[in-house]
């Protein structure tokens, strides 16, 4: 029980008109400080719900989350979230968006000039110094996400929670962002939990990959420790047999042991890379399914 972040028997039920819907069942996970964890699983398996519980945006029905010896009961800046669609305030510049967070977290702790320096430092870290005074609608998708990451980093969080941070970006930008994230990670060594659909992204970035079973009552199916030396280089890794082995492990989990419930009728669901990419890019059927499975979640939020 002396791990940094502890999820103990986290279970969550969402009320629906047909009785409670169990989305997560007894999730158990210990994370060390400075670890990079990926959560991977099919759409609708409750990955986002896990993240939201850690963030404090949802409350677990049973079990709980302990961060650095304290139970998590409400959202707070020590668990900064990077949202999939950046969630920057569109009427503020990049600088002002980060400033809002910094002012909130370091009120009374940093002087004015120190805050300014700190904001600029964080924007520098994500290579956005040149566009500090631009508003989100003047920035590209990748740049917006960079500012989102800068905002999260600027809070000096104990854990950084990333909900498919690069999911909405094109492949090239995504690769670029992954490299940037690794670079920042070498420098700051944050504890990170990231949700992803992308097998390559998971293997490239993570220390451990947490693979989730399909819902309802989803839980952790398997945890894969990625023992690749850092710094990692995507080009060099493509030739490394271990890398391909890890990759195949994840793909096997997702496509053999816990097939996408929507594609059950498919006879060929082997671990070839084509299926992997297909799932990484979320085909339309999967999106539809995600929406359906998300309905109880939305219901609970609206309540």
């Amino acid at each position, binding site marked *: 029980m002396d791990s940094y972040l502890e999820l103990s028997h986290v279970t969550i039920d969402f009320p629906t008109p047909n009785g409670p819907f169990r989305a997560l069942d007894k999730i158990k996970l210990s994370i060390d400080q400075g670890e990079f964890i990926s959560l991977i699983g099919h759409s609708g398996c409750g990955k986002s719900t896990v993240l939201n519980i850690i963030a404090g*945006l949802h409350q677990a029905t049973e079990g709980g989350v302990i961060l650095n010896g304290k139970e998590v009961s409400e*959202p*707070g800046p020590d668990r900064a979230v990077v949202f999939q669609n950046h969630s920057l*305030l569109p009427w503020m510049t990049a600088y002002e968006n980060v400033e809002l967070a910094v002012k909130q977290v370091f009120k009374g702790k940093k002087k004015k000039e120190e805050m300014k320096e700190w904001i600029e430092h964080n924007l520098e870290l994500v290579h956005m110094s040149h566009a500090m005074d631009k*508003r989100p609608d003047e920035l590209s998708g990748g740049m917006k996400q960079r500012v989102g990451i800068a905002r999260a980093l600027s809070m000096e969080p104990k854990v950084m929670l990333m909900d498919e941070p690069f999911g909405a970006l094109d492949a090239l930008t995504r690769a670029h962002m992954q490299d940037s994230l690794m670079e920042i990670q070498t420098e700051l060594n944050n504890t990170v939990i990231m949700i992803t659909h992308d097998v390559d992204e998971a293997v490239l970035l993570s220390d451990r990959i947490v693979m989730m079973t399909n819902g309802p009552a989803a839980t952790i199916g398997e945890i894969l420790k990625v023992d690749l030396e850092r710094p990692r280089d995507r080009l060099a890794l493509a030739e490394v047999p271990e890398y391909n082995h890890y990759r195949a492990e994840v793909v096997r989990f997702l496509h053999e042991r816990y097939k996408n419930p929507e594609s059950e009728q498919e006879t060929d669901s082997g671990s070839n890379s084509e299926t992997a990419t297909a799932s990484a890019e979320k085909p339309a059927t999967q999106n539809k399914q995600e929406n359906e499975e998300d309905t109880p979640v939305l219901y609970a939020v609206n309540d």
Partner: protein
Amino acid sequence: MTTQILKNFSGLHNILIEPFLRIFTGPNKAEEINKLMKAIVTPLVALGIFLLLWSAGASQIKTSLGAVPGPSQVWEQAVNLLDEHKEERQKEAAFYERQEKRNAKKLAANPDATVKIRSYTGKPTYIDQIWTSIYTVMTGFLIASLIAIPVGILCGLSPLIYTALNPLIQIFKPVSPLAWLPIVMMIVSAVYVSDDPMFDKSYLNSAITVTLCCLWPTIINTTVGVNSIDKDLINVSKVLRLTWLTKVFKIVIPSSIPMMFAGLRVSLGIGWMVLIAAEMLAQNPGLGKFVWDEFQNGSSNSLARIMVAVFTIGLVGFLLDRLMLMLQKSISWDKSAVIR
């Protein structure tokens, strides 16, 4: 600075100025001229047809005040009204000049003499009446906005408050100003009792009636705007643990400004319509009273003068709406949004 003002004057700017500029700056001059001709000629043709139909139709109908006036008679009366205004102003100036001379003479004869300065008491001219109307509607609208925006924000943020207030809002929303007015009049005469009143009762009656009718569109639109804030932005405020006030000012208000202004514009439009009716009955010396007085007066020029008022009311209403647009453009962060 001027370019900024021009930019803010969205509609007028786009319609009136930009096409001309494009003739000089655009790459294809012939096409730009062609476009401009279309933009100007089409409305002019429509206007011409309207005037023709009007003058043809008007002469067919005989009322107790003579034939219904056509465009030329209305124009004549418009010029008359303006002349009367100028004449009245000259009389006023002359009155003050005479008074000053008289007082100066008095003081020259006896330095200790007490001089009386009386203000001019001529009847208000048409232009004065327009200003009275604008002033009154703005008062009512401002009071309504100061109440409606905070109430709308509260309704949008708290489902409980919304559930509580919604039935009241829905019931009061469709009430006609003519139903409010008698109640307002009685209450104002009962409550606003003063030996030296700062405001005329007629002014208060009209303004408060406008307020009562202006509240609802702003409340409803603000509620919807606040309620439809991106859930992720609310999550951001939760993660940052923003205080309630910071959340409202940094996130809620900026993101609901477009809807808020949509409501404010509808409110001001309604307020202007309501005002004319209220002024007729409350006898507030504005355009509504002008129309009523002309109707009671029943001279051969009355109908034409009322029609001048109709056009004035339309034009002022249009300008008020443009004013709100300018305000929205200067306040809203989303300059790229198409605002109509």
